[in-house]
């Protein structure tokens, strides 16, 4: 088996991973970024909309352009990027098992930054295995990366920002969106995103869920049904919508199998997508030398993922001796300030509170008083 040694290994070449790689490399560390996909950039390259945030977060710039710049910066600073490569295991002694195009590599790292992102939730219902039912993220990959229209008329389940943005992008790609269906009594995502959808004439069905998909060989329609405040269907309120595509935008959960495998301890925070690794303000997990950043530590959005990546990169470089305590503290304070501004306002405050809880639980863990959180 091929053996390799690297100072900093970053797993995942998305917004968090690339940001972490840049910070660590610019401080002087030797950095290798590994991604299972054939192109780096993670979700950024399917984000054709203009980002929110502050100007220092490149707000107003479209996601794929942010991705392109981040990628150029990563290459320019001299971090290596290894694509089509799957990390299948991390051991507590910081060795990684990697498969690159059939070749097995044993990689020894001094620091590992896990930035593996999140995966989409599924929603089971009669007919949910019919062709035409897909994750909203899959539909977005089809239209914006592969330039294939998944269908002509879609129903979107879920009114969070993913559901709203993908609905808009489906229309931009030339599809119709028959409706957005949401179980909660109000729209989950940003009002301005919802506004775009409404101006295009798309109705919202709030307090509704999907009862079943119609069709024999593929989706031909969807039956929706109203739900009460306990999300139980109300018989007699069914409605039929004609559609050939059903997109599910019903939340994401962190992809952190590698962190489980490494032996990290976990928290349970539903608002972050469920099980999330305990980590300190350096993004270091309970395994010394293993850091986590981005959606893998709790589902948020790309700008905060980049800032968490920045934090992890700085902290890893500091731990390797490439940054003095003062230099690192100064960089971390700036990053933390930007993170705090992103976790503000009615949409951000909850995330900030949960992040603080996650950090507090880590402190409790260090003091031996964290008993773990269980699913209610």
């Amino acid at each position, binding site marked *: 088996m091929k053996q390799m040694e690297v100072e900093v290994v970053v797993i995942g070449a998305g917004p968090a991973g690339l940001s972490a790689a840049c910070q660590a490399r610019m401080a002087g560390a030797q950095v290798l970024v590994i991604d299972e996909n054939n192109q780096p950039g993670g979700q950024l390259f399917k984000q054709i*909309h*203009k*980002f*929110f*945030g*502050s*100007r220092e977060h490149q*707000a*107003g*710039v*479209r996601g794929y352009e942010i991705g392109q710049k981040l990628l150029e910066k990563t290459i320019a600073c001299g971090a290596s990027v290894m694509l089509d490569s799957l990390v299948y295991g991390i051991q507590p002694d910081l060795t990684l098992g990697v498969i690159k195009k059939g070749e097995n590599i044993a990689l020894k790292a001094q620091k590992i930054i896990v930035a593996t992102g999140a995966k989409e939730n599924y929603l089971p219902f009669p007919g949910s295995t019919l062709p035409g039912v897909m994750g909203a993220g899959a539909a977005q990959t089809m239209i914006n990366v592969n330039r294939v229209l998944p269908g002509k008329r879609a129903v979107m389940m879920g009114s969070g920002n993913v559901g709203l943005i993908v609905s808009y992008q489906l*229309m*931009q790609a*030339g599809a119709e969106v028959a409706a957005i269906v949401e179980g909660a*009594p*109000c*729209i989950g995502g*940003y*009002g*301005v*995103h*919802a*506004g*775009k*959808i*409404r*101006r*295009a*004439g*798309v109705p*919202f069905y*709030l307090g509704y869920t999907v009862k079943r998909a119609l069709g024999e060989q593929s989706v031909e329609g969807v039956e929706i049904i109203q739900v009460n405040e306990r999300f139980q269907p109300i018989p007699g309120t069914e409605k039929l919508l004609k559609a050939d595509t059903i997109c599910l935008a019903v939340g994401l959960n962190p992809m952190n199998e590698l962190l489980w495998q490494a032996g990290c301890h976990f928290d349970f925070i539903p608002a972050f997508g469920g099980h999330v690794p305990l980590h300190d303000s350096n993004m270091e997990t309970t395994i010394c030398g293993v850091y986590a950043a981005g959606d893998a530590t709790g589902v948020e959005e790309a700008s905060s993922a980049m800032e968490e990546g920045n934090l992890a990169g700085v902290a890893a470089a500091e731990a390797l001796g490439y940054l003095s305590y003062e230099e690192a503290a100064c960089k971390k304070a700036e990053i933390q300030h930007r993170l705090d*501004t*992103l976790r*503000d*306002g*009615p*949409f*951000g405050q909850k995330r900030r509170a949960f992040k603080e809880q996650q950090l507090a639980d880590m402190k409790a863990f260090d003091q031996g008083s964290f008993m773990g959180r269980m699913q209610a």
Partner: protein
Amino acid sequence: MKEGILFTGVPSPAELAASPGFPDPVFREKGRIAVIECVQEIPCNPCEGACKWGAIQIGDHITNLPALIPEKCTGCGICIANCPGLAITVIDNNFSETESSIDFPFEYLPLPKVGDVVEAVNRMGESVCRGRILAVKRSKAFVGTTVVSMAVPKEYQDIVRSMKRLPIPEKEGE
């Protein structure tokens, strides 16, 4: 049916009236002016930086709602394409004796052409009147968003916010 941005995706009259970016009717008399329909405190501030006249202010707290300083707004419209939320239009209620003009962001293809008569839609996407396309502006500074300028009868100036998407021409052989 509950009103408001959380329930309909459309800001209610009360939400608009309370928003610091929504100009008071008094200032609408002066001609071209930005109308910012941003009523939720989301972390976002590109509009503030885009306005070189200092007519849009957010401040250090980026979740503050954008405030329009009507006296400073020239109606130049650079904010329209720079708003990631596509929540800004520029309205001129003195465009002509009978018509107002509305400049709005448009990110669908095909684009309309100057002189086209299109279906003008309200905030719910319902056709409310005909609109005449005055200009179709594309610029590098607009980061991919087209700004369409459209004339509508004066009485619709506060109702119309966009136009109906145009049909995609069928390709030959399909």
